[in-house]
């Protein structure tokens, strides 16, 4: 069953607006949860949370350390598993123990980015740019196909 969301209209300088593919999601860790707006980003290899959101979920520093490289340069990260829930009306999709990378920098561009690993592995995602809608269908392949493979 599919879930669709309208793009979010946001202001730009010069009396212009832009429509962005943002959706409501709930992150849960143990008994803590935060429902927030996340952007769906097919250009991001990883699913990312800001340090502020991670702290709200009680994620202590001490996860698996790593780095991410973006337009702003290289940033340090720590990885934690969290539970993700996406729902609309009676449709509810859970992604349990989804690994997210927490940015250790203090000024992220976005506080929650749903990137390819592992978010896109769970859904078939359609960006309806002209209708300004995003449609998520739970993938029949589940989490079986990672975008990362060992080179032959």
């Amino acid at each position, binding site marked *: 069953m599919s879930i669709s*969301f*309208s*793009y*979010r*209209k*946001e*202001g*730009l*300088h010069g009396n212009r607006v*832009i429509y962005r593919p943002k*959706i*409501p999601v*709930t992150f849960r860790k143990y008994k803590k*949860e*935060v*429902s*927030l*707006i996340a*952007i769906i*980003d097919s*250009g*991001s290899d990883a699913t990312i949370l800001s340090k*502020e*959101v991670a*702290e*709200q979920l009680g994620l202590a520093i001490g996860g698996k350390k790593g780095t991410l490289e*973006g*337009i702003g340069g290289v940033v340090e990260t720590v990885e934690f598993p969290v539970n993700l829930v996406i*729902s*609309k*009306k009676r449709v509810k999709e859970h992604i349990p123990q989804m690994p997210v990378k927490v940015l250790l920098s203090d000024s992220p*561009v*976005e*506080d929650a*980015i749903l990137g390819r690993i592992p978010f896109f592995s769970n859904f078939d995602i359609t960006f309806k740019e002209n209708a300004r809608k995003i449609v998520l269908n739970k993938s029949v392949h589940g989490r079986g196909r990672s975008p990362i493979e060992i080179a032959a």
Partner: protein
Amino acid sequence: MPNPTLDSDFEWYTSADLGKYIGKWVAISNRRVIASNQKLKHLMENVEREHPGIRPLVTRVPEKVLKAI
């Protein structure tokens, strides 16, 4: 516990003018902003204190710029 107003709050959010909150976190419940703060931690503390039992939809209102993430 699920947030019973999440769908409605997101629908409202998609076209809401949040220009006066740029750079701040906002908490949305029942199609309105019920709290705002520079820090998410303080926002959630405010919501717990002023609106006990409410599980808001939260977001940081971005600057009016084009982004390359």
